[in-house]
């Protein structure tokens, strides 16, 4: 199973069998709760499957997202630092990440299946690829956002290029990097649902399962959780950014 085994939770496949007509007149059972199959949304199904289905898949989804964003951030930061000094590298990496971004998500995932298999690795390669454009561009913009006067003063005061980069450019890039990280995280949470087509992980798996049935509750519950996850992640990143950049809020405070 390769990378799948690394995940710290059970990956037992979710049962997807739909009872066939051969069994005679049967009320299809979509996982308990005693819901009628034509109900738009059935709370008792959610209660019944909360601990066994929804939470484990939500946790998987968080892991998938976190892995992709963290790896994407590390690579994008390194690339942006390089691009800050080498303009040819900036052009090259920008073109590369733009091309990746334009590839349809499902095609991107399936492209790697012959190479890396129906695995988490395939999913992460795709997801990380989508973060590059946002994170790289934002990081580079941030590194260049230092006021010209501050750069001139820093050089005149005897800061070495390395000190200027670490003490001035990098901290001043944090707001822009965090803005990129917010968009990238929300994008990955959304794209990761599609990734379930490759490997049965995350909230996407529940959605794909439900697509094959007439039972709506599972689809709606998983989708709602994905949306909720995106909102919560975004809010947490906003809080993190505020904590990391105390000078931003005072500036706003003064103008209002």
């Amino acid at each position, binding site marked *: 199973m390769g990378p799948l085994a690394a995940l710290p939770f059970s990956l037992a496949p979710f049962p997807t069998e739909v009872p066939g007509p051969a069994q005679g007149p049967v009320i299809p059972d979509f996982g308990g709760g005693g819901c009628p199959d034509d109900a738009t949304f059935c709370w008792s199904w959610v209660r019944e499957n909360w601990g066994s289905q929804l939470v484990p898949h939500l946790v998987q989804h968080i892991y998938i997202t976190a892995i992709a964003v963290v790896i994407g951030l590390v690579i994008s930061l390194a690339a942006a630092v390089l691009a800050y000094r080498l303009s040819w590298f900036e052009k090259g990496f920008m073109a590369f990440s733009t091309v990746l971004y334009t590839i349809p998500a499902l095609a991107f995932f399936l492209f790697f299946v012959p190479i890396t298999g129906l695995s988490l690795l395939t999913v992460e390669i795709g997801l990380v690829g989508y973060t590059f454009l946002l994170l790289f561009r934002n990081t580079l913009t941030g590194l260049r956002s230092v*006021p*010209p*006067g*501050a*750069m*001139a*003063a*820093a*050089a*005149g*005061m*005897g*800061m*070495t290029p390395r*000190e200027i980069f670490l*003490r*001035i450019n990098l*901290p*001043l890039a944090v707001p822009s990097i965090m803005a990129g990280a917010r968009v990238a995280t929300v994008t990955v949470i959304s794209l990761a649902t599609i990734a379930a087509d490759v490997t049965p992980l995350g909230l996407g798996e529940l959605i794909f399962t439900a697509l094959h049935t007439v039972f709506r509750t599972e689809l709606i519950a998983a989708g709602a959780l994905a949306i909720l996850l995106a909102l919560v992640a975004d809010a947490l990143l906003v809080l993190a950014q505020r904590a990391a*950049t*105390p*000078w931003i809020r*005072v*500036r706003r*405070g*003064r103008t209002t």
Partner: protein
Amino acid sequence: MPHLTGPAGSDAKLPGSDHGADRSAAGFDPEHDLLDGAAHGERRSGLEIEFRNVTKRYPGQDQPAITDLSLTIPAGTICCLVGPSGGGKTTAMKLVNRLIEFSDGDILIGGRSVRSVDVTTLRRDIGYVIQQVGLFPHMTIAGNIGVVPTLLGWSKERIRDRVAELLDLVRLDRSLAKRYPAQLSGGQQQRIGLARALAVDPPVMLMDEPFGALDPITRAAVQDEFLRLQEQINKTVIFVTHDIDEAIRMGDSIAVLREGGVLAQFGTADDLLANPADDYVADFVGADRGLKRLSLRRLGELVNGRAIPAGAPTLTADTSFRIGLSVLFATNAPVLGITDDAGAPLCSVTLEELRSAVAAEPGS
């Protein structure tokens, strides 16, 4: 704390000024000197700056940006570099801390070539103030002032004490230390810029149109404050400005540069106004140089025993001739009374006496 200059050790550092013979013998050591200075309440005063036939050529340009510039700025004085845009005044200033490297000649600080010092050490030991101030927006005021001390590895306590001391020196409240630059007014930011440049008590300050972005009232206040400060700290200052009035006000000496960085005239404000070397300088100082020159003279120079007649307008002794004349013309009074700062009468002068005093050389 390792030595800042690598293998050359203290040999590579700027020597002490004439004011401290023992220091110049030992060689100038920013770390050691400052520790001692702080402990004993001593201060480093300015060092003489000498431009010796300095030329700066840029590749691919026929005319040098600075042409054979020679001038000596005495220790502890302010020299204003003035001239038109593109006249090379900022370039000349940046040659001193080697933000721009000169092509020929040499620049000496306290007798030692700036090229004999490691460039990072040199810059950290020269105060640098620019028009945009260039405070770092993500650092508090204390963080900004403490940038160079931090790079030099000072202890937290020592930096904190120095920050408080500098805030007092530039007359800002110590509570500002925890604020961010965006929370300060333009005038306050410029004072923080000054405090930051003074953090390690450098012997030399380079100031590039430092007050150019301030409104006229704030500007005048900050100018006065800097002159008052300079009386305490006695730095050798190179002050770049395009404003001849600012140069007259701030400069112990003024160097007028023309296109190509050629020195048109170097002298005191009064030299320039009374005896401009040529039409270019005369043009630059302005057709009203006669009046400007009167700004340099104080009514206190005029001493006679005559009492102030009743009803005559009075001015204090440190008022300029220019204001004195203006008051005489505006009130149409025959005589002007002069008092001391407290308002006690000193003497009175007529328009004719003022005119003959102007005609005579200053100080005679």
